[in-house]
């Protein structure tokens, strides 16, 4: 049903959500068992389906602990040419990313994972997360600003 590579990829998705390998393992195991009880209609959708289950479980648990913020759409102006490509010109070193990673919200890490590792487009991310494209664009805009601000803060020994 799942290849080892797919399980590793799902585990990494869990790590992106939780930033904790043990929690990611639990999340993956729960989701896989849930998929086995009620498999998706198409085998092709297995990965996306499993990720959705992992995400829902994570949100349930996090909301229970009041850690997962409700998403709100920004009032800031979203231009039509915004896309995940807006992240492509950002360069960062490993230490900076490590420092930033834990400061990002789960949704921001999730978007980064889907963009960088799964190589999803904005539209595909919106479908995977079942969110309006505008919400994703807004998050991307905020994420880019945050990455740039915090990366420059780190490089100058600033506020992070």
């Amino acid at each position, binding site marked *: *049903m*799942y*290849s*080892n*590579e797919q*399980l*590793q*990829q799902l*585990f*990494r998705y869990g*790590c*992106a959500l939780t930033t904790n*390998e043990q929690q*990611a*393992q639990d999340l*993956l*195991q729960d989701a*896989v*068992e849930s998929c*086995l*009880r009620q498999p998706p209609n198409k085998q092709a959708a297995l990965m996306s389906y499993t990720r959705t289950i992992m995400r829902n479980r994570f949100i349930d648990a996090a909301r229970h602990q009041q850690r997962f913020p409700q998403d709100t759409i920004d009032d800031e102006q979203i231009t039509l040419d915004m896309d995940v490509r807006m*992240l*492509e010109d*950002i*360069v*960062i*070193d*490993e230490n900076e*990313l*490590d420092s930033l*990673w834990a400061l990002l919200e789960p949704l921001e890490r999730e978007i*980064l*994972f889907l*963009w*960088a*590792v799964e190589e999803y487009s904005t539209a595909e991310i919106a479908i995977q997360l079942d969110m309006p494209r505008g919400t994703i664009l807004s998050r991307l805009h905020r994420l880019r600003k945050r*990455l740039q601000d915090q990366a420059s803060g780190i490089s100058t020994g600033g506020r992070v």
Partner: protein
Amino acid sequence: MKKPLNQAVKTKMSQHTLSAKHLSELQQRIQTSEVRPAVNHASRFKLAGLLAAVFFTALFTAMLLPHMDAPEKQSMVQLIANEVVKNHLNLKPLEVHTNDIDSLIHYFTQLDFLLRPSREVNDFKDRLMGGRYCSLQGITAAQLRLKTQTSSKANTLYQTEYRKAVFGPLPDIDRNQKPLVAWAKGIKVRIWVEKGVLFAMTDISQTNDK
């Protein structure tokens, strides 16, 4: 060293790896669960038939097993070949362009092994074009690109730490064993172990129809 954000995230995430033990437990659980519903819904006759089939299959397998290669070894070799060919055909951009193995070693700081030329690859240093981070069956790997000797095309060479628990038994050329050959999408892939490193390399000089 600064790198594009997507590459940095990819590298960071590739460091998270399920252990072979967890992977094996998970696969075992999946396989057990996949069989269970059929048993639950089977009628008595179906159940009896199923048990008989299992019995005869086990008997048949036990009789044939000494004459066959282990099936998990076959399937893992094919999985490796499939993954290597898939990424060979994708031809994603190299993260570092160099024909100097020392520069590559300097770049691939996240690997648990040392990149090295292989006795199985002629003119390694002259043919090396560069590399990128990748993974093989979930294990962090280096994906190198090498010019072919006869054309302008390139072959893909994977190197990763050889973990027997994950990859199963593979031929070790230091013990005078010959590389395994598998095919995927018409492309030949040779797989071997050398000095504790797993090598998997496409050979586009040969195709299925030859």
